[in-house]
């Protein structure tokens, strides 16, 4: 059994990543899970969060929002609605988006139809900032 396995991250708009990695952790909807090579077949939905992948001692992150992960013994496929590599994230834009969403949330009641939408974009913006903060 190989120690490395293939990680592929795709979104409807592009192929984000396709590389051999040693380990990943991903934000399952029910909680974070980690995968090493030789994992048993596993299928999970994803929430908003960071996918960490490790190559040797090098750890990198991808901000993902919604989607699912298919884990086979030598391959992990992540089909996400949105995915951005840590190096690609525009921190200023994320911060602006976060402030906008926060301001809007204050004016909306929890039952308003836009509430969940704004909450989601707040979560996404915070997630981006967190992922960007981990790079370097």
């Amino acid at each position, binding site marked *: 059994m190989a120690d490395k396995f293939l990680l*592929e991250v*795709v*979104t*409807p*708009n*592009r*192929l984000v990543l396709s590389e051999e990695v040693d380990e990943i952790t991903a934000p*399952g*909807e*029910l909680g974070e*899970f980690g995968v090493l090579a030789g994992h*048993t*077949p*596993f*299928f*999970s*939905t994803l929430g908003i969060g960071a996918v960490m992948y490790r190559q040797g001692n090098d750890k990198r992150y991808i901000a993902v929002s919604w989607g*699912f992960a*298919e884990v*086979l013994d030598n391959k992990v*496929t992540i*089909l996400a*609605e949105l995915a951005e590599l840590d190096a690609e994230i525009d921190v200023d834009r994320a911060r602006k988006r976060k402030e906008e969403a926060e301001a809007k949330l204050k004016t909306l009641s929890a039952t308003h139809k836009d509430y969940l939408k704004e909450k989601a974009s707040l979560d996404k913006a915070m997630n981006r900032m967190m992922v960007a903060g981990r790079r370097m």
Partner: protein
Amino acid sequence: MPSLKDIRKRIASVKNTQQITKAMKMVAAAKLRRAQETIVQARPYADKMREVINDLSARVELDRHPLLVRREVKTREILVITSDRGLCGGFNQNIIREVVHLLKNKEEGVETVQLNIIGRKGLEFFKRREYPIRKEYRNILGDIDYATATMVGKDIVAAYEAGEFDELVMVYNHFRSAISQNVVVQKLLPIEPDEMPEGGVLTDYIYEPSEKVILNQVLPKYIEVQIFRALLESIASEHGARMTAMESATNNAAEMIDRLTLAMNRARQAAITKELMEIVGGAEALK
């Protein structure tokens, strides 16, 4: 024989048209390039999705989810993808011909065939002829993103689950190259996985949160991805078809200008000859 002035006017008008068709060709070419890039980018997701669906359906019984169950087909729906704009050669006609063929030749047991139309051109045709249209989408072709496909997909899945139809096929132009598109009829619902290779026992997945939740998310998404892909293919084909059509229109205009120029020169020469004759005749008379 038309006068010199008439021919000159006609040449000017053809030249005008030629300029327009030339510009349209350039625009189509630029848009085609963009559309092609989008397709290439979207392909991995669609392919992965197909793999995942195959992996999944090999492991679950087909009666586990309504989108996988095969029902007796009484009502069939055709999702027709045409364009909003014309002047693109046989692009829309080819689709319409195929759909009319499907409407006229029902398979045994099928009682009704209804339409679901994307694109103004198809809509105009089928509305005028009063074919049954369940649903139509207007003005969605301008700027296709994944959200558009999500909207169409959600509606279709909801209608299918509500039993409004038992089978869905999609008819669209598949993009082969800038000069070649072909009409594809693709079955979308119920979802049919590829044949699995025989033998080899597959280990079951561990599902998180549960098999049901996963299927409920993955299967509709698959439909959306397929629609998304078809929309992109159709748009690239449209630009390709328009480019070819405008290219030949431009060539035809050039040919016409050549012919008219020839006629004009002939007319001019005839006029000059006539004038000369008159002068010579006049001089002759004065002697």
